[in-house]
């Protein structure tokens, strides 16, 4: 699913996107959690194609994404980053979006439109 479709489905707004080409990047899977150790434990492959949804709106969600080479984060419940953390996202070049959807609704909308979960083995 292309980023452009994802943000339409979630009515999400960009907080940081390096360039317009990113809207054509495909993400095949998504994972959602506010617990970063769960993210670090469960995302085991296809890292660059996995979208992370979280309500944890701080540097640790970005650091977690950085360690796993994730390229895109979506913050749920309308959360936004403070300026320092936004600068960190730019430094790491991780695309950031925010949606007013709750975690449940964001996941439901994307799953209904065909975005798969990750495989937990």
């Amino acid at each position, binding site marked *: 699913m292309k980023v452009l479709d994802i943000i339409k489905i979630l009515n999400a707004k960009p907080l940081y996107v390096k360039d317009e080409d990113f809207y054509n990047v495909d993400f095949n899977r998504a994972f959602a959690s506010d617990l970063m*150790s769960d993210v670090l*434990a469960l995302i085991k492959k296809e890292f660059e194609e996995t979208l992370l949804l979280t309500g944890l709106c701080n540097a*640790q969600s970005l650091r*977690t994404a*950085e360690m796993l080479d994730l390229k895109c984060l979506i913050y749920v419940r309308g959360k936004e980053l403070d300026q320092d953390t936004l600068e960190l996202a730019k430094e790491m070049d991780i695309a950031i979006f925010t949606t007013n959807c709750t975690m449940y609704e964001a996941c439901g909308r994307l799953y209904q439109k065909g975005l798969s979960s990750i495989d937990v083995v």
Partner: protein
Amino acid sequence: MLSEKYEVARDDYANAGRVSSQVKQYLSSLGVSSDVLRRIAVACYEAEINMIIHAWGGAINLNVTDDGVIQLIFKDVGPGITDLEKALTPGWSTASEEARSFGFGAGMGLVNIKRVSDEFDIVSSEEGTTLTIGFKVS
């Protein structure tokens, strides 16, 4: 052998993960493959977070041996882990509310570290905990 040393300060939540980022960048510059690099980054980040939220700070030593082993030694200054067996049980956690507000305290830290590393050793007393992990790169 190449060696690097990094300091981690107690309760330094604002900078949590910075050392792991530096370690990842350094090893990337040495040409370590992305799969191995990701495993090292995950382990290093979990261990760095543990030093900040559970310990009173400490140091991280990175060694790259000539025979292709990357070793990370996390040595903190206390207060030690009272029950190592429980600490290695998935879901068991003594993390504070502050640690949880940063997204940690799921009780998966040491479990994750052990899972992704090729070598794992942990020794703990009231004087501190030393965690040694190794990764084979060749």
